[in-house]
């Protein structure tokens, strides 16, 4: 039945506004799902970094989203990689210098947890390390060579991808850039 008078139309408008408003409230995007770029997650510059969950060498779960709100240096490495060994002290120093503002997060690709655990202990690594023994996350991030490092800003957006070793000045400069952004 169509409204006939102005009052009836106004009442209908008010009812629809209330129902529509409630629908909008019910469909708000949860904070963790807000995508700052409007682009789909992808291992590319300008896209949100795809989230993943792996286990640490100790068997605890760790996700990229655990570092939400911080700049992240996501470093893919392997125990046999000599360049990775060279850059580890720089990553370790950076993780301590930028503690609380930026995180260094290492992902060991296609290696068993016990080997990663002994390497972490030998090299004195204290920043978080995840074990991607099946290589699925490495594949997701299109890792072709070691080390590969993703610089992710505090919104979770990839701003730079580097393949090859990082010198300490370069690493510190990039981290400072990330914190300014």
């Amino acid at each position, binding site marked *: 039945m169509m*409204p*006939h*008078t*102005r*009052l*009836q*139309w*106004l009442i*209908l*408008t008010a009812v*629809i*506004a209330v129902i*529509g*408003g409630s*629908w*909008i409230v019910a*469909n*708000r*995007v*949860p*904070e963790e*799902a*807000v*995508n700052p770029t*409007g*682009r*789909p*997650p*992808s291992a590319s510059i300008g896209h949100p970094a*795809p989230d993943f969950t792996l286990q640490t060498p100790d068997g605890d779960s760790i996700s990229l989203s655990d570092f939400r709100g911080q700049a992240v240096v996501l470093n893919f490495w392997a125990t046999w990689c000599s360049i990775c060994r060279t850059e580890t002290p720089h990553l370790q120093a950076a993780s301590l210098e930028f503690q609380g503002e930026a995180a260094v997060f290492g992902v060991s690709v296609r290696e068993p947890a016990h080997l990663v655990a002994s390497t972490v202990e030998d090299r004195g690594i204290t920043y978080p390390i995840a074990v991607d023994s099946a290589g699925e996350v490495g594949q997701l991030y299109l890792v072709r060579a070691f080390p590969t490092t993703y610089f992710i800003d505090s919104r979770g957006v990839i701003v730079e991808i580097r393949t090859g070793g990082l010198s300490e000045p370069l690493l510190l400069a990039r981290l400072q850039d990330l914190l300014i952004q």
Partner: protein
Amino acid sequence: MLPTIVVGPVSLRMPGLALIVGVWIALEIASRLAQHQDFSEDQLFSAGFCLHVARLAGARLGFVLLNLDLYTSITPLSRAVLAAFALSSGTENIWFGLVAGGAFFWWFAQQNELAPLRLADALVPAVLMMGIAVGFANFFSGDYYGVFTTLPWGIDLWGGVRHPTQIYFLLACVILLGGLIWLLLTDRAQGWPPGTISQLCLLGLGVAWLLIEPLRADSPVFGDGWRIWQMIGLTAIVVSLLGFAWRAPSQAQNVQPAEQP
């Protein structure tokens, strides 16, 4: 998703092609339906074409102004100017485009002594056809993508099976345009007050935005997760209904039976 197709040595960008074809069909439809709304074909074709150019120019100008540092960093100046006018999608600001289009529309109606609400009604078929073209363009580019679903009509996109939200919006525009063409061709809209067709279009698009947005995974949001297009949709619905309220009589009119002699 089909961003480009290669035909021999030519690489065609499908989203752009869909929009260009959409503009042409939109102008054709609007001008062919012109006589049903007491306009000449030429009047509507030129109004639609100029409006589209004004909207596009405003949207690009807005983008350049908001990202002036990107363009000023290009040297030499001639390359920067060319970059500002280059045909590239994704470098438009929708809000500047709407303001520029609205201002041009008002100016065009005044200059040609056309009633703005009647002109708006006559351009509605073109707007809906552009909605269909935008739906196709988004489908080809992979933009406006949906959340994950297990429904049988989900499409494989960006790493999973998702709601085809581009197709949902496209279908909403097809239904609205189909209904409008039926109304016009059967002369059922004859005698409607000016602006009624625009109001119905606003109402239909508003409902579509309100219902489709929750299925989108890339909704633009502001503040505490508020979906911008849902807010615009509800505003469109309320404005449309207030238009009907404004025209309705303040009191119910009682029809007196004719006296018998």
